[in-house]
């Protein structure tokens, strides 16, 4: 799982590959149902869908915070559920995650929260001291460096979570509604940041409800509904209105994928 560039080398396995994955929660609720999907290195993907459709479940799956009832989850060509327990921290270090509920450490300052992601990897102190303030300035929190999470506004907490997710320059970045608590201007700033990070070769998966943003960026859109992938469209819109549906058909035809194909093992569209 070395850093790769936006230009995908076909010889290497996709960074994420789900094969017929079903997730069943303890109560019996089906979180994801027979989901198959590939994400290539360097891609930028929007994951959209109504509330409760399984987007966060997808993120938890990649972090092995959940295990699938069936199917396999491959990250960088390795089945992460076959992995030994002791290797899981290594997996998680290589995936930067913005959690929907931020998951900040309440007894650490903003600085220490972000630094923690570097400390786990054994980064030298000097390096941490250099990088953390820089990344915090990038997300607009330069002035809040020594505050504790409960002294921050919702949007500020969210940006700490964003900063922590990419301070270690992970090859894969999962952002679960990274702008849900942010005003439009700050949201755009964060999205631009994600975009820039993607340009350096990082694969980025963004869960969002921000229709405007998705429509503007025109990147690959995977749409979930009730645990199933109902659309996987490159350069898609947040929702498929008449015209975008046509667009989707065109794209998927261009890629030579059958319109009704739900197991699409390419990034093609499947409605």
């Amino acid at each position: 799982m070395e850093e790769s560039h936006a230009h995908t080398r076909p010889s290497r396995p996709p960074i994420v590959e789900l094969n017929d994955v079903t997730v069943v929660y303890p109560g019996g609720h089906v979180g994801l149902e027979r989901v198959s999907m590939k994400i290539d290195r360097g891609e930028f993907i929007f994951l959209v869908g109504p509330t409760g459709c399984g987007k966060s479940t997808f993120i938890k799956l990649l972090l092995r915070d959940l295990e699938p009832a069936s199917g396999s989850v491959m990250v960088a060509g390795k089945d992460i559920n076959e992995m030994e327990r002791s290797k899981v921290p290594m997996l998680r270090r290589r995936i930067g995650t913005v959690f929907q509920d931020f998951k900040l450490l309440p007894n650490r300052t903003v600085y220490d929260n972000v630094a923690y992601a570097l400390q786990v990897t054994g980064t030298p102190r000097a390096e941490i001291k250099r990088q953390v303030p820089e990344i915090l300035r990038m997300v607009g929190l330069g002035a809040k460096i020594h505050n504790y999470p409960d002294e921050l506004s919702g949007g500020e907490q969210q940006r700490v979570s964003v900063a922590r997710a990419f301070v270690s320059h992970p090859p894969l970045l999962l952002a679960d509604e990274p702008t849900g608590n942010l005003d439009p201007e700050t949201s755009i700033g964060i999205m631009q940041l994600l975009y820039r990070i993607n340009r350096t070769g990082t694969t980025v998966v963004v869960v969002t409800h921000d229709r405007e943003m998705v429509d503007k960026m025109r990147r690959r859109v995977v749409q979930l509904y009730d645990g199933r992938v109902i659309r996987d469209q490159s350069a898609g819109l947040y929702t498929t209105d008449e015209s975008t549906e046509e667009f989707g058909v065109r794209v998927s035809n261009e890629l030579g994928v059958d319109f009704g194909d739900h197991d699409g093992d390419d990034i093609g569209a499947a409605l």
Partner: protein
Amino acid sequence: MSRFAFFLGEAYRALRRNAAPSIAAVVTIAVTVLLVGVLVPVLDASGSKTNDVRNQLELKVFLFNDASKGEINSLQNRIEGIQHVESVEYVSPAQALKILEQRLEDKSLLNELNSNPLPPAFNVKLDDPDNLESVQAALSPPDSTGKPQPISSAIDDIVTGEQTQAIRSVTGAVKIMLLAIAVLLGIASLFLIGNTIRLSIYARRREVEVMQLVGATNWFIRWPFVIEGIVVGMLGAGIAVGIMVVAKAIIVDPLSDDLTLIDNFNTIAFGPLIASLVIGAMALSALGSGVTLRRFLRI
């Protein structure tokens, strides 16, 4: 090295930011150590007092007044050869009278005697009072008819103290009880300290989950908790020891000059006691932290 410094720093942060549970843990450990620290010497003193009583139990072998010196000497050797006999002391009639004189309040009584009525005797000390029967049997093994016969014709009578049986069973029970209390106390300390540590970590289980999600290995999470446990254990035990030292200086030491029971306290060395309490508390607390965490780490 720098990693160790990091873990130390983490432990310090946890203590400072989670003051409430840390203080609770320190207090519980202090109270428990204090209980153990006070009760262990008391139990120990009671135990050694009990042993003193038990060790005074002896067997008296009365001889006929006409026993010759040779008979006495050879008998003494034979008795000393019996298993479980610790020592054999010869008491001449004159010595016996002196002892009696000391025990009587009105000395004039003995002046009235025309002759010494007391027989010569052996005081036989045993290694353990529980072996009384076996020694008694060795001194007068049963003959063919099953009736016990003294091993020597010089022996007039073999007598055990009247209360030997009672004392033996009482002291035995006391020893069992002291042991039971000590064991109970030990188990109680384990539970009390372990439980408190568990609770104080329980309050932080969400934090542990987040650390795991961010890619921290189990030991990376665990070390600060273990160090914190050591510090908490040290503080708690330290407070308890401080109280004990002060209490010893103010209460126990002034009394111990004239009091034999309290003198017994010094049979248990204060230094080693304190050292083992402190080390025990630290180890228990650190272990408790480490083990409890295991559950939240879902290993």
